[in-house]
């Protein structure tokens, strides 16, 4: 069993910016080094690695730059935004099962340059499942996400004004986080309503930032964690999820396209946990695009079907709301690093040192991308 057997004991991140000078390898190594320092663990103790299939840095390159010793486990999780909790969960399983002792999971990415946008590298001929959408002009993830949002708005009677509350709420958190892209840069509802459209009904502020940076975390057994200085964030439950008839990003072919893979992850995550949604003190929800927050709030059981945008409009995800969400600003306003920023914020909330600390936070949820096969982790304090 995995429950409470492992913990995140170290977090590290580089500076976040539109353009950083360092290579992705240098960024990865810097973030990992900081996470190990934060944990108080020597590099030569690391024997497990977790990363993303989208990661450009090979395990052996990372290992020999940081001076790791002999490794016993490594795995990569697929699907970009769906991967962070999966990569961490898999390393946790390896530690809990005794294969390895000290794990590192990281993501380094230089995406500040518009030329690095994945959709802009679409080839002349499309052979994968995107052959059924890209030739028709549904090219970018924003377009794919907008399709579901318009349907949701139609089905439940919402407008762009309702959706604006996602971006403005997250921006308020970022305004307090000195490490965030959007620190002190305010966003009003008026700014939102006047913003240029990217894929109607989504506008500029419904899209994540484009950024360079790296983030890493260190995992050990709970037994080991108790001997370290930092308050551990115990991995209480973890699951991955992929719905029947799922299709990556253009997930339009299931019985109800508004019932994403998040519903699958959620059901199994709660089955494995001693907690229910009402017990969660704070949540970090993957937000490459703003619709993913209301969709996930419903999938994880924080509000009823079709209720999420009114819940958010009434302050439900704000700092004094029922379930504060993306308290460091999220991918919309802190940094976009395939959701690894959400993981470290979930850990900070347990430690008690977030820039928007939720008092006495004991149970902290982190989720990954609603539109891909995904995963989630429920952290608890000691």
């Amino acid at each position, binding site marked *: 069993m995995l429950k409470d057997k492992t913990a995140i004991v170290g977090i590290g991140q580089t500076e976040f910016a539109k353009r950083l000078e360092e290579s992705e390898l240098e960024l990865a190594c810097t973030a990992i080094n900081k996470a190990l320092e934060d944990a108080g663990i020597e590099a030569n103790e690391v024997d497990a690695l977790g990363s993303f299939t989208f990661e450009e840095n090979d395990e052996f390159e990372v290992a020999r730059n940081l001076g790791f010793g002999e490794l016993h486990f490594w795995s990569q999780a697929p699907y970009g935004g769906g991967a962070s909790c999966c990569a961490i969960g898999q390393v946790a399983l390896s530690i809990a099962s005794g294969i390895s002792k000290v794990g590192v999971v990281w993501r380094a990415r230089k995406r500040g340059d*518009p030329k690095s946008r994945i*959709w*802009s*590298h*679409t*080839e*002349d*001929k*499309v*052979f994968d*499942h995107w*052959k*059924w*959408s*890209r*030739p*028709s*002009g*549904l*090219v*970018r993830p*924003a*377009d794919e996400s*907008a*399709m*579901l949002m*318009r*349907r949701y708005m*139609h089905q439940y009677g919402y407008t762009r004004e309702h959706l604006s509350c996602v971006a403005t709420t997250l921006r308020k958190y970022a305004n307090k986080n000195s490490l965030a892209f959007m620190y002190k840069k305010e966003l009003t509802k008026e700014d939102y309503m006047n913003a*240029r*459209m*990217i*894929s*109607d*009904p*989504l506008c500029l502020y419904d899209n994540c930032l484009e950024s360079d940076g790296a983030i890493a975390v260190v995992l050990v057994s709970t037994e080991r964690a108790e001997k370290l200085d930092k308050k551990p964030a115990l991995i209480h439950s973890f699951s991955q999820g992929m719905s029947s*008839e799922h*299709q990556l990003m*253009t997930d*339009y*072919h299931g*019985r109800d*396209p508004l019932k994403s893979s998040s519903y699958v992850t959620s059901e199994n995550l709660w089955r494995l946990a001693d907690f229910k949604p009402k017990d969660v003190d704070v949540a970090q929800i993957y937000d490459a695009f703003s619709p993913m927050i209301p969709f996930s709030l419903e999938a994880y059981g924080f509000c009823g079907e079709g209720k999420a945008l009114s819940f958010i409009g009434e302050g439900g995800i704000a700092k004094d709301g029922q379930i504060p969400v993306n308290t460091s600003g999220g991918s919309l306003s802190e940094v976009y690093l395939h959701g690894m920023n959400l993981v470290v914020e979930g850990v900070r909330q347990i430690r008690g040192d977030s820039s928007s600390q939720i008092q006495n936070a004991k149970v902290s949820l982190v989720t990954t991308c609603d539109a891909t096969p995904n995963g989630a982790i429920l952290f608890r304090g000691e």
Partner: protein
Amino acid sequence: MIENIPIPGIEDYDKGFWSHTSKSQLVVQSCSHCNKVRFPPRPMCPSCHCLEHKWEKVSGKGEVWSFVVPRPPLLPAFEEISPYAVGLISLEEHPFIRMVGRLKIEEAQKNDDFELIKIGSKVEVAFEKLTKEICLPYWVIKENL
């Protein structure tokens, strides 16, 4: 970035779809053994695991399940025609089969008037020749005019 519209690459399991669209006929893949329909096309029937398939003709009528209007930055070929509408169309005979396609309004001069497009609007398929082998389905709005 590519200058042209990206073209669907043809695979063994979907060549029948494209050979029919070249003749202005919309089809859906169905299982040779249990007759269940599936979309997008794939090699194996998820119901009975049969690897043989056939192509069932459909009327090409459907309705708009949802739609978006992309604006730049886009691939150059789409930037040139933006704003345009792309819909997710639910087929009349098989409402749970949904296809992505460009949405056009019957009278050409009205193609910019996206207010005319509604979820639930009735549409009919048409085909645009992209290459010798590929005719891409798109959808024409027949009502709300």
